[in-house]
């Protein structure tokens, strides 16, 4: 199926993690460095100088209260929080005590000492209206620690008691109201902040940053962007504005600008946790989160982000721990609560879900963000139906939750509900045009509108008109063949129609699949009812194998209501490849032996880690391979019915060990031991020596592409004596060193030492007769026989090669043409189908196909081939159309014959072959010159 890779923080993950941005950082208001160093007090004649601090560290001197306050603020700005706490604590004079208490509170909050931070500032707030800044800061701390009701009460007093409450108070009040579900009231406060700015009364950088946040909350994204820019222009050290601005960029999937902002903030303060957490959502998450948590082990945003990261990497227990830690600090973290609720929902643990919902309802009834978060998570875990239900609930609570509209639209599309999905995406885009994911997905709708829609009994397919003409004639029968085969085999009939979308551009495929244009090496994705594919026109791989692989996912996912783990789903799809065609799929050879020798095999209970812990495409490819091995083992040792039983187990939420016990009547350890014994038997049977200096074959598209033998490719490039000598040494030491024999054969072939080359290549062939890499012994043997003029032997070797190499259309075509020349229509048909499975866009395949059809007297097939050639053979359109017209005529399609030959004769009116077809078509149709319709 090629699920999106979740092993690293790829695009789809980032898309989800960035949700945390909106909810955790900006809205939760973790940016505590809003106040400039003594920015709101007059300090005449004071020019703070860092050298003073440095000097102060080197040589302690007696500093005044103002010096300590200034130093405290500067240390706070630079991230020396403990130093800042010490400096603020040194301020004894009453005149500066409030400022020092505010700074102290912020420094303590930045290091996670929330109770002390609250205590430091609470003493200042006897009358909230009289101490608006202190009261506001106290309210922010209350909100950060899950005391939103107290925060609301406090801020309400400030707003009520002040004619012109501070801008920060208005915005923070709005955020608290928003959190508590009082959306209209929140909008009033945000609008009041904007009105203050519009009246020209906001000058301070920190306040402008707050106005920007208010604009963001009111979905005035353009204004928010401009205001953040102004805030940073007014004060380049405004870390809060820099980071919130980055958060805004990130929410709109503009990682590049977000990263720039976070980096600017980290240049000023490399310990500024909101920026560190922001960076973690873009790249190197573990590194940045570790840095963030080192500064503040109770940083809620960092804990939430870490928790989500773990959960998405299938480490649910660890993830839960982090989310619980976040909730211990802030019991009102919507992100943490919705993430835990999503985990409960995905495990069908509805009591736990309801408990979490009740916790949210206690402070924010029917929180739209809560349901949107659950929906997003479920959608990213293939639970599209439930995702749609929760997204609808989010929208019911807040129809202006554009993120929820995007989640709903995206998941409806994955369920094949395109019309309604598009409506929600358009609604989201109209109100949030800066969301790149939404606009990308809508652009793909534009692409699809230009595509053809084709149908078979069980499938509805969208593809380009070029593919509709070239690919569809060969895809349609394969689809129905797979349906018939798999329905019978799995005793299950998926919901129809299965939607298949074939994209010409990789970017469109990626956006349709995960919303963003970067999807890595994937070539096809199955969502259960919808399959997305890259057009074979942009691949050099066997598209039929890829299609079959994805169609198997349709069955296994639907059989389990999309609850199957990735390893088993991939394992079955990969295993089914070879069941469908002997030349498809993986082989038990060098890769297996090397994996066993290097101890790469994971316990069966940890197979998903192969996917989640993959650090490279090669790792991921191996994860597919090992999953396939387990399925092969089950099918061979226990029979297919047991495999089917195991699939059905996953339709229920149970512990994996329980499922294995139900099916195999043993625990996972015993099963794993049996698997390893079986693997060892296979390794013994293969009996090949794997040299440590050789590398793995590398294939594109998780093994769907040509698997290149890099060691042998090098041998082709370097024809030197030392390589030959070295390989001779290797085969003397290890006579079953496949690679050494192959490389020797290649080198000797280059030197035209054919007899010796043949010996080594035949030896290699004997060691691994089903080797599927490139180049293979049979390929090089074929080249030797060609050089020797021994066509028969060459063809024989090409045929051997094609038994295991599925991506070589040229050899298949060569064999087909030879069979055609020999009149062997059966072989010609077989090899042409092999060529078509790789490159249906190669005109020569269709020319040969037409020739075969004519030999067979199959006029319908001839028509099909010439129809394709009209599309593909642009060098001589007159001839192509004339051929097609002739085929139509032979197939009694008289109207099409006339229409087609007219197009040829329009260009070449004197072309007598075409004239003859026209006259014959007219004569047969019994009409004179009546034109049927437009060509």
């Amino acid at each position, binding site marked *: 199926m090629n699920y999106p890779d979740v092993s690293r923080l790829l695009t789809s993950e980032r898309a989800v993690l960035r949700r945390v941005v909106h909810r955790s950082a900006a809205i939760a208001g973790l940016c505590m460095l809003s106040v400039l160093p003594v920015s709101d007090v007059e300090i005449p004649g004071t020019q703070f100088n860092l050298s003073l601090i440095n000097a102060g560290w080197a040589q302690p001197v007696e500093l005044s209260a103002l010096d300590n306050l200034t130093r405290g603020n500067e240390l706070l700005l630079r991230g020396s929080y403990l130093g800042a706490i010490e400096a603020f604590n040194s301020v004894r004079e009453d005149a500066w005590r409030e400022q020092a208490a505010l700074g102290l509170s912020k420094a303590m909050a930045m290091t996670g000492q929330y109770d002390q931070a609250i205590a430091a500032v609470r003493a200042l707030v006897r009358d909230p209206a009289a101490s608006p800044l202190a009261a506001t800061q106290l309210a922010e701390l209350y909100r950060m620690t899950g005391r939103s009701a107290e925060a609301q009460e406090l801020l309400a007093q400030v707003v009520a008691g002040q004619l012109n409450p501070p801008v920060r108070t208005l915005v923070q009040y709005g955020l608290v109201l928003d959190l508590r579900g009082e959306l209209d009231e929140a909008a009033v406060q945000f609008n009041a902040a904007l009105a203050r700015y519009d009246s020209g009364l906001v000058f301070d950088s920190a306040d402008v940053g707050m106005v920007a946040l208010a604009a963001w909350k009111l979905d005035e994204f353009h204004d928010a962007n401009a205001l953040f820019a102004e805030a940073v222009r007014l004060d380049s050290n405004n870390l809060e504005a820099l980071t919130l601005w980055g958060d805004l960029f990130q929410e709109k999937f503009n990682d590049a600008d977000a990263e720039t902002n976070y980096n600017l903030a980290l240049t000023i303060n490399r310990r500024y946790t909101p920026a560190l957490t922001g960076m973690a959502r873009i790249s190197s998450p573990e590194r940045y989160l570790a840095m963030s948590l080192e500064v503040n082990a109770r940083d809620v945003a960092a804990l939430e982000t870490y928790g989500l990261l773990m959960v998405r990497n299938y480490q649910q227990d660890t993830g839960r721990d982090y989310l619980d830690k976040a909730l211990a600090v802030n019991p009102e973290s919507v992100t943490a609560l919705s993430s835990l609720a999503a985990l409960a929902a995905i495990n069908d643990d509805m009591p736990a879900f309801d408990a979490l919902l009740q916790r949210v309802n206690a402070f924010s009834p029917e929180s739209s963000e809560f349901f949107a978060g659950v929906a997003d998570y479920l959608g990213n875990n293939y639970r599209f139906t439930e995702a749609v239900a929760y997204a609808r609930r989010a929208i019911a609570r807040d129809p202006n939750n554009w993120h929820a509209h995007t989640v709903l639209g995206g998941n409806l599309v994955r369920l094949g509900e395109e019309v309604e999905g598009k409506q929600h995406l358009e609604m989201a885009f109209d109100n949030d045009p800066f969301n790149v994911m939404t606009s990308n997905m809508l652009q793909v709708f534009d692409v699809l509108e230009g595509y053809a829609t084709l149908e078979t009994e069980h499938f509805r397919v969208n593809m380009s008109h070029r593919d509709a003409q070239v690919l569809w004639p060969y895809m349609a029968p394969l689809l129905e063949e797979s349906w018939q085969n798999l329905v019978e085999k799995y005793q299950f009939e998926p919901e129809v129609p299965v939607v298949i979308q074939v994209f010409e551009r990789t970017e469109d495929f990626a956006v349709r699949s995960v919303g963003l244009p970067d999807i890595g090496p994937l070539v096809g994705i199955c969502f259960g009812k919808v399959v997305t594919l890259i057009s074979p026109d942009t691949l050099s791989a066997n598209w039929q194998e890829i299609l079959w692989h994805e169609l198997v996912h349709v069955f296994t996912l639907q059989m389990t209501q999309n609850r199957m783990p990735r390893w088993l789903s991939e394992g079955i799809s990969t295993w089914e490849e070879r069941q469908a065609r002997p030349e498809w799929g993986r082989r038990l050879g060098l890769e297996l032996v090397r994996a066993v020798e290097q101890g790469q095999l994971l316990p069966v209970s940890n197979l998903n880690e192969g996917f989640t812990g993959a650090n490279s495409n090669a790792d991921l490819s191996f994860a597919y391979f090992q999953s396939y091995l387990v399925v092969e083992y089950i099918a061979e040792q226990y029979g297919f019915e047991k495999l089917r039983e195991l699939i059905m187990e996953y339709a229920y939420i149970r512990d994996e060990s329980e499922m294995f016990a139900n099916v195999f009547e043993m625990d996972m350890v015993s099963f794993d031991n049996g698997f390893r014994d079986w693997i060892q038997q296979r390794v013994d049977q293969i009996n090949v020596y794997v040299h440590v200096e050789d590398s793995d074959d590398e294939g594109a598209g998780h093994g769907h592409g040509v698997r290149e033998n890099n060691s042998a490719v090098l041998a082709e490039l370097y024809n030197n004596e030392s390589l030959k000598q070295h390989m001779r040494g290797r085969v003397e030491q290890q006579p079953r060193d496949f690679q050494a024999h192959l490389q020797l054969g290649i080198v000797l072939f280059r030197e035209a030492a054919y007899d010796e080359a043949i010996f080594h290549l035949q030896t290699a062939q004997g060691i691994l007769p089903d080797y599927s890499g490139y180049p293979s012994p049979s390929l090089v043997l074929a080249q030797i026989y060609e050089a020797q003029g021994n066509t028969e032997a060459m063809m024989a070797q090409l045929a051997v090669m094609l038994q295991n190499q599925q991506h070589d259309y040229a050899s298949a075509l060569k064999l087909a043409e030879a069979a055609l020349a020999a009149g062997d229509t059966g072989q010609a048909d077989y090899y042409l189908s092999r060529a078509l499975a790789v490159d249906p866009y190669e005109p020569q395949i269709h020319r040969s196909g037409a020739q075969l059809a004519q030999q067979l007297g199959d006029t319908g097939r001839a028509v099909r081939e010439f129809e394709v050639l009209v599309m593909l053979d*642009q*060098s*001589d*359109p*007159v001839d192509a159309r004339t051929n097609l017209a002739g085929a139509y005529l032979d197939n009694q399609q008289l109207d099409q014959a*006339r229409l087609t030959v*007219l197009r040829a*004769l*329009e*260009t*070449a*009116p*004197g*072309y*007598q*072959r*075409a*004239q*003859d077809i*026209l*006259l014959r078509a*007219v004569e047969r149709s019994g009409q*004179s*010159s*009546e*034109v049927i*319709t*437009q*060509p």
Partner: protein
Amino acid sequence: MMRAFQLLLVSVLLWCGSVFAQTEQPVGQSGSGSEDTPWFQQTPQNSKFALIIVGASANDEIRSRLRGWVTDLHASLREDYGYDSDAIELLIDDGSNVGNAASIVSGGSRVADIEAAIERIRSRSNAGDQLTVFLFGHGSSTFGDAKFNNVGPDMTGSELADMLSPLTGIDMVMFNTTSASFEFSRELAGLGRVVVSATRSAAERYDPLFGGFLVTALQQKRADIDRNARVSVLEVFNYASGQVSQWYRDQDRLSTENAVLDDSGDGLFSREPGTGQPDGLLAEIAYINVISAGTQKTSAEALRLTAEMQSIEREIFILRNQKVNYLEEDYWKRLEALLIDLATRTRRYNELP
């Protein structure tokens, strides 16, 4: 204003005579259009000449490749298009080191050699004859004038134009296949001339593939898209430029060359000449083939059918050029009627003894 006038002139002339400009008519019989068209009205009485100029090569590999192309071209002109060997002037490099092409090479491609070859052609040609010039090799336009790199002083486009100026009354076709050929070709543009450049700007400086595909297009009349057994310059251009585009597509590379054609004489070249374009109408009737009297059926019935076929063919051309003025259905209905008529008469003609 001048350009508009020229275009109108060419269009009107072609409108009247395009069908018959190069049809192989019985001796003494001329189509109605031929009397009105001042260019490319060759009859079996007219001669056609080819001047193939291969410049200096940067290395042996290029020399070998260019020699292969022009050797093939020389053979194709003779075998596929009816040129006499002595009607083809093949000038290569310094005239020596030409391998197995010695028997067909007339000399080197120094400016003096080119002048001498043109003079030989002039002395043997008459008004109404046709000369096709093929330029192969390297071009440059880095330092002022665009130049063709030949042995000795490089030749500019205006110098070649001057050298060709004595050939008054001779219809001319130029294929410049060199790198940076555009500026050079522009100097050769003129009323009644068809000029093809492998590149469309001075910036396209890499050795073009166009020359090779040009030869391929001519060989075995591959470019004869309308299957009339004659190959027009437009057909050659379309075939070769299409192959170039396909090559770059296949390689998944951005094209570094874009062939262009000018036949309206204004020096403004078109990338896609043809119907509805400023250029292409003259190139459509400028044929590479030498016209021969051929073997004609001479019975009264044959002559009548020939005349009728030519008349229908002319109607088809006119209808095709007026396609945008018809409703789609009406157009195809009319076209089918004409095509059936033409096919019926062609069949009857073929059945005559």
